[in-house]
């Protein structure tokens, strides 16, 4: 009588090293960015429906959004994304060549946040608040959510910078910081187009 045996499990630890196509931190950041993208899509979709169904737009007796100043802010943020892209290319050549474009990306990102804060202060002084109108509610919700993401992404960039200052910036940290910052940079022109224009 033949005895049937169970197939032996393959010992995966004994095999050749597994190829990692994408680091875990970068993949986790991509999943996070995907969920945040849907959050912003929901906000923008709701804003579009509300705007298209409004009788008067922008609402009367409400300040107009500063289109020209925000266009400059948009250019600053896009320049920050370009600087980070240059930093990525310099990363392969060595840490010393990375510092300047990386610092420029962080500086331009911080400038964007500061200019947005100044814009908010002016708009609040002119009477656009969360409760003043539907425009104010959606404006502070959407632009505020983006500002929060920009501040968090700046924090990740600062963390990566500190790792670089300590002598070693792992590619996984660099990649995760890039994904987050490119998301912040990439979604802003869409917000500008839908909310400001």
């Amino acid at each position: 009588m033949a005895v049937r045996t169970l197939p032996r499990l393959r010992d995966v630890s004994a095999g050749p090293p597994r190829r990692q196509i994408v680091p875990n931190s970068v993949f986790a950041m991509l999943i996070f960015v995907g969920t945040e993208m849907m959050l912003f899509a929901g906000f923008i979709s709701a804003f579009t429906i509300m705007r298209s169904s409004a009788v008067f737009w922008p609402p009367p007796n409400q300040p107009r959004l500063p289109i020209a100043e925000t266009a400059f802010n948009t250019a600053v943020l896009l320049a920050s994304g370009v600087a980070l892209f240059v930093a990525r290319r310099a990363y392969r050549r060595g840490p010393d060549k990375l510092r300047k474009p990386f610092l420029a990306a962080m500086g331009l990102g911080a400038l964007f946040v500061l200019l947005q804060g100044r814009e908010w202060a002016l708009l609040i002084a002119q009477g656009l608040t969360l409760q003043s109108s539907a425009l104010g509610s959606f404006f502070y919700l959407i632009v505020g959510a983006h500002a929060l993401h920009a501040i968090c992404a700046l924090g990740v960039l600062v963390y990566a910078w500190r790792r670089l200052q300590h002598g070693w910036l792992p590619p996984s940290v660099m990649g995760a910081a890039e994904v987050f910052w490119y998301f912040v940079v990439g979604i802003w022109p869409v917000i500008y187009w839908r909310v400001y224009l």
Partner: protein
Amino acid sequence: MRAASFARRCALATAVPVMLLLPRLAQACSVCSAGREDSQSGFIVGSILLSVLPPAFVGSVALWVRHRVRKLDAEEAAGLLRLPERSRAAGLRPGALAWHASVPASSPPRG
């Protein structure tokens, strides 16, 4: 039991054509201006955005991963990838071999 199931199917079979034939009823909701002509463009833009974005994002990530796999295969075939021993000596996990192949050779080890 069977009668209830039949009734549910009949209700569904009636509701779907009604929603298809009368889209304004389908657009109705309690919090927005239901079925108004001027709000239809907003509904259309929102529907397109929310429908297209998830597959576009997932598809983009899948294409990028495929691109990376092909690039790494090509580098491996050309002998450009680092040896596992070198990666281990640099304090990296063996599984990280492919990703760390693009690290500059002068990078100091971690830790």
